């Protein structure tokens, strides 16, 4: 009973609270923003298309080798009528995923508009990832990988091709984002260490991570 040090804990009480990162998904209608989130969150794909109404949020904790991050995903509606709402959400997000459909050239062209929106709200204090979704439909491709890469290089942003349907590259996308978040492991540890020193007697940082990784929230 008293041997609490050696017994495997059901919950890891020593880990410090995580900082949240807001990620907003942008892009034209039906490019697959919601599908990307669904794939990432539940690892499923729904073949029936349903337009997102308004703006919705979901959270997920990612456990990486050297850090744990909590991502708050903001799924926006691609429909034009919701367009005016979106800048208000870009405003508070530190990451913007701009999605286009590789089989739809128009959706690729409008990414410029979205990226401009992001830049005008956040300046350079933002991570922008250009995502070409529906990579599984390569026979209907209208936007080449090279073209999109060139654009991303030109704009100084990341680029990735994904397939929410096939589950291809979706995890890597979010992992890549998590890895490029600026120095958050230090920040988080320092901040919580100062105020929670009464609890965190034996915080060992990243080593606590694997314990809780089955926690799928």
């Amino acid at each position, binding site marked *: 009973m008293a041997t609490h040090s050696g017994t495997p804990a059901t919950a890891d009480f020593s880990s410090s*609270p995580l900082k949240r990162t807001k990620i907003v998904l942008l892009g034209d209608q039906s490019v697959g923003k919601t599908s990307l*989130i669904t794939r990432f969150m539940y690892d499923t794909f729904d073949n029936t298309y349903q337009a997102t109404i308004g703006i919705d949020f979901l959270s997920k904790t990612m456990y990486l080798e050297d850090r744990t991050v909590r991502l708050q995903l903001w799924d926006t509606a691609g429909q034009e009528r919701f367009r005016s*709402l979106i800048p208000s959400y870009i405003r508070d997000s530190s990451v913007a995923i701009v999605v286009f459909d590789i089989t739809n050239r128009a959706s690729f062209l409008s990414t410029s508009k979205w990226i401009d929106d992001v830049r005008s*709200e956040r*300046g350079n204090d933002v991570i922008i990832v250009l995502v070409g979704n529906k990579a599984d439909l390569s026979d209907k491709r209208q936007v080449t990988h090279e073209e999109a890469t060139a654009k991303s290089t030109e704009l100084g942003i990341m680029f990735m091709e994904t397939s929410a349907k096939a589950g291809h590259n979706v995890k890597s996308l979010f992992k890549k984002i998590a890895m490029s978040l600026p120095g958050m492991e230090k920040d988080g540890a320092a901040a919580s260490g100062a105020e929670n020193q009464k609890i965190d007697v034996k915080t060992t940082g990243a080593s606590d991570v694997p314990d809780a990784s089955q926690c799928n929230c």
Partner: protein
Amino acid sequence: MQSSLSKSTVSALPLPSPSSSSISLASPLQRGAALPSSSARNPISLRLYKVLGTNFQDPTTREALETLSSFYAPEIATPGQTEVGDEDEDEGSDEEDGDEGSDAQPIPMPRNEKIDGDIAEKARKLFRKNVEGRLLEGSYKFLQAFKEVDEQKLDVLQVHVKDMQGRCDEAQVKLQATNEGCKYLLERAGSLQMQRQNTIARQSIISAFLSRFTLTEAETEALTSRDVPVGRRVFDAMDKTARIREDCQVLLSGDGGDDQAGLDIMSMTAERLEQGYQKLFRWCSFEFRQLARDAHLDVAPVMSEAVRRLRQRPDLLAEALKILSSVRQATLLSLFLEALTRGGPGGLPRPIELHAHDPMRYVGDMLAWVHQAMAGEREFLDGLFGVKDGRMVGSIREYKGGEVQEYIRALMDEDLEKLCMPLKVRVQQTIKSQEGSITSYKIANLLQFYKVTVQGTVGADAILSQTLQEATEIAYQVFFDTIEAQGRSLLRFLHPPEADLSPPLALRDTSQVLRDIMSVYDSSLLEAPAQDQMQAQILDAIVDPALEMCKRMFAMRRDGTKWDRAVFLINCTVFLQTVLQPYEFTKTHVASLEEEVNESVQILVDEHYALLLQESGLAPIIESINTKPADRPLSHIASADSSSVTSALSNFDAFLSTLDVISSPRLTLLSVPRLVTKVHRAALARIGRAYGTVCEAVKKAENRYEFASTLLGSRRPFGQMSVLWQVLGVDEGGIDGVADSVSV
């Protein structure tokens, strides 16, 4: 030995022959010489063979012989003894005496010859005696030796033995005494041992009991001391305390004799447990106060565990949560104000109030900020209470109920409460500062959208939802006020319609507003059913005053005819209709406007017909037909006599020849060609029927027209209706339909 020897001699002698006895006593040499000659079956010879065959080489025989030889040392003849030994040997089966005799025979023979034969003889004779003497001598020596023993040593021994016995008895007595003495001790030891065993057993029971029913020092410390941080150790101690109480309860519920220990344990653990909860409470309160810094902080597992446990003490939890909610309220409020006025570090994101000039962006930013704050709170509280949000993205959040959900709902409500006032004030200001109705309508729409969005997370009864509801109502109120004011101003500044009876400028302006509102509605953020009611109201508020305005406008025209009024109203109404028509949701309004149009169309048809009738020349005849007394023939009425009819019909002929069946100059001001055609055709159809009526009247005998058919046949269309319909271009079957209904 002696007896056996003699016996053997006796038995051996008589068997072969009586004479052989002398031979047996003869020298071995002689005997040996005699043997080969005697027959093989002779027992003596057999015995001799046996004797001769005997081996004397074994060490014992040798030793015996040695001893014997010392008997008869050189002074006394030993060979004689050897002879005797021979004799013995013959009879003895395998005794050493017999052996020595047979052995001596071959060997001492030469010795005997060397030694004095005298000694041998002596030996032979005295052997027994010597031996016996020796035995005697030996026995005597023994006797002497034992005598000595008997006389001295044995006595001493006896004394010693006696002594020993005495001692032994003594010892025995002592032993017995000791035994007696020890018996008690042993018993005592035994019982002590038993007691010890019992005690050990009791001890183990008690220590098991204690370990089961009491807290260790460390555990007590974990519960009571401030030095032990809240964590696994404290939780384990609390678990144990709770378990002790549970077990104790079970014990107490049984029919036990002494409940005192149980009661003690219960009261003790109750105290400890309470201390534990107090500790958790204090810790949570402290931690909650630390949550002021960040809008989006996650919950550490230890905190959600502490809260989970505190749920057992709702009072404490409620108090701690009160602290939490007040901290969060203040935090969110200051963050909100910061976002409004300061923005992010380094200027980006920009402060929300920077967009105050753009009402949609400004209100949208504020609402989005609140929405995100709400999301953050929701997530924070879900984490705090260990709730997993398992819904799919985009699916509707629903309030499931339950204790935890109730806590979360209440906290969400309180956390966001302080945001409501500043939000509402700003939204209200924004709405009220708008001049046009469109913006307030857009804001109302936006507010309503957020109200629905927020309701999904905090519930419809939440203060935030209520605030948004109120704000929405205010926005709509302002909007309605604006359009009503517009409506009133429409009626206030009236101008008579233009000469061309076209829709007035004011109506065009109103239509533009209407168009804008409807396009906002059509791209509404909300699902249609939520707003249909509202939309109907809006249409009423705009369309009704507009129509009223048109009516009043026309009333201002001094020379306004019925005809012009109808044309003007149709022009205006249809103009409104065309504005509304593209939108699905205006159906009912379009239909009600259609009725208005139909009414006016009917007026036009009537007027137009009357005028056409005048022009056609049939009017007096029709008039006469309609007014004539029943008993007078029509031809007897002045205005309908033959000549009048003839002139009317010739007029009609002329009318037909100049008639434009498509349109009429009178209808040029009617701006809707479709309705122009409709009115004209309906009127023409009625003209046709009027002609039909005239024909019938003329043909009727009772009207007493002479040459009725000539009368009718002299002029086109010669009394034939089908001809007339052809001329008028009106389909006979469609007449009624055209005349009665002017539906589109």
